[in-house]
């Protein structure tokens, strides 16, 4: 039927499965994020650490090329655990900035425009909605974090041979578990803030505040109490210690790693509670 005929009719075609409906939210949110050329350019830049890592691993195993430029395989200190730890940091940091840029508009815009009633008036519920929005961050952050990290790890294991991958399984595990944990924590936190703070700059400021100002506050508590108890509210310290413990490297402070996991878990629970409180089709005044 020609669309201009102004006739309305029922839809009798096939329907997509209910479980895939959150993916619709993800698809449209991703399209909106990449509609900004500046963001697209920034995102490509975020892939740079992974690209450099791949290049360095390749270079380290290209003996002839190294000889031509007068270098040895250990030209940058070698592909030790420290190299991979350093690379991890340079993947996690851009990921945080991507989350800070994208997340404030994910939920805040829907709440500002009362669009939640349109989403939730359809056969999806609040959990589907959050999963759809969270998947946006997961899909954006994965290539620049754990996917890139595992790519480098697998490349190194392949080029090195001799069971290097099995001997250094902690590196691969740290990349996967560490980055996934970071993505989950930062996604839930940024979505919760997006639900509560509708003004984008304020939402971004709140995220920086929680991550960096809270870290400074935690340091002050540590200094005053002469303990590491302040680290309980220090998200960056918690994720650092968790990742380093998986790497098998040194951690900061005296808190057991279990308490660092607790900090991350508590952040997730608090974020879910905030989302539960705020994500309603309509405000309920009791």
């Amino acid at each position, binding site marked *: 039927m020609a669309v201009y005929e102004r006739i309305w*009719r029922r839809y009798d075609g096939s329907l997509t499965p209910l479980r895939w409906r959150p993916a619709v939210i993800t698809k449209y949110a991703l399209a909106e994020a990449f509609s900004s050329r500046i963001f697209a350019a920034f995102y490509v830049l975020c892939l740079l650490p992974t690209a450099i890592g791949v290049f360095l691993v390749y270079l380290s195993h290209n003996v002839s090329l190294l000889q031509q430029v007068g270098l040895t395989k250990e030209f940058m200190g070698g592909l030790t655990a420290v190299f991979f730890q350093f690379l991890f940091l340079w993947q996690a940091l851009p990921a945080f900035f991507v989350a800070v840029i994208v997340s404030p508009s994910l939920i805040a815009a829907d709440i500002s425009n009362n*669009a939640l009633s349109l989403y939730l008036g359809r056969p999806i519920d609040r959990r589907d909605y959050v999963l759809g929005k969270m998947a946006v961050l997961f899909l954006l952050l994965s290539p620049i974090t754990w996917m890139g990290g595992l790519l480098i790890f697998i490349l190194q294991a392949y080029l090195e041979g001799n069971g290097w991958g099995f001997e250094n399984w902690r590196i691969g595990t740290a990349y996967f578990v560490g980055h996934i944990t970071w993505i989950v924590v930062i996604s839930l936190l940024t979505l919760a803030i997006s639900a509560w703070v509708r003004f984008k700059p304020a939402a971004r400021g709140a995220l920086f505040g929680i991550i960096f100002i809270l870290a400074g506050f935690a340091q002050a508590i540590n200094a005053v109490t002469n303990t590491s108890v302040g680290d309980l509210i220090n998200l960056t310290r918690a994720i650092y210690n968790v990742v380093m413990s998986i790497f098998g490297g040194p951690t900061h402070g005296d808190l057991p790693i279990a308490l660092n996991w607790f900090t991350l878990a508590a952040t997730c629970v608090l974020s879910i509670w905030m989302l539960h409180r705020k994500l309603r089709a309509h405000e309920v005044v009791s």
Partner: protein
Amino acid sequence: MTQPLNHDAPVLELDGLTVKLGRRTILDQLEASFSGRAIGLLGPNGAGKTTLLRTLLGFYPPSAGGAKVFGRELATEGKQIRAEIGYMPESDAYISSITAIHFVRLMAELSGLPSEAALERAHEALFYVGLGEARYRKVGTFSTGMKQMVKLAQALVHGPRLLMLDEPTNGLDPPARKRMIDLVSDIRDRGTSRIILSSHLLGDVETVCDEVLILKRGAIADSCDLEADRRANKSFVEVDLEAPSDEFDRAVGALGCEVASLEPGRLKLVMPADLSTRALWTTADELGVGIRRLDLKRDSLQDIFMRAMEDNHGGV
């Protein structure tokens, strides 16, 4: 387990439905059943019309009782019910940063339409509501009337079996209001979708709806079947006589009229469909009774509504 859709089930069944928000009872033990093509929810502001719609959509959980939509239980089959519904909320609700076609397509996909079908239906829906030329404009730039229309488009894009329209003519100027009512009437007449129309505008409800539920302070004040009344084609006549006359009362009763005496010399008559007012004039003439005033009218929705709104003190 999901039950198959019962095509013979009433559109809406309310079974002691009670909704409390905080300590306030918003809907109080609603009991009703509706099967009409278009059901009107009438009531003054705060009567509970919007809360009833939102409860049917699962936004508010019932505190007691329950409801069925097309035979599906609200408590256990919320998603299946919402899959059958197109909802147009009362307040502004849209995504301002995307174009109308993008917005309506997104809503169609969320309702389960595959991407290509969603795009085609989005074009159709926007043309149908008269936004064909504006479909590539961002929704945030639309006027109030256009936003109402795009809300209607997103509600019907997936061809729902039940359209829930909450105050669809809010903020519209008279031509736009007429167009909205014409569209809703057109959808009703096609018969593929049932409609629940919530409004405090009696004219809108009377034009569109077959059945009406009148709410007052969260309770059912009245309900009526307008379509049955129309079919019965009953006429109401108010007659003022110059002097009370029992003979005239008996004579019009013999003509088949139902007679109610409002006060001495003032009658309200329900006339059979085949009787004209000329017969009343003739009868009065034969009996030598003077008629001061004869007012022919239907028992309009306004009468029903005003009666329903009267409390013990006669106030609204």
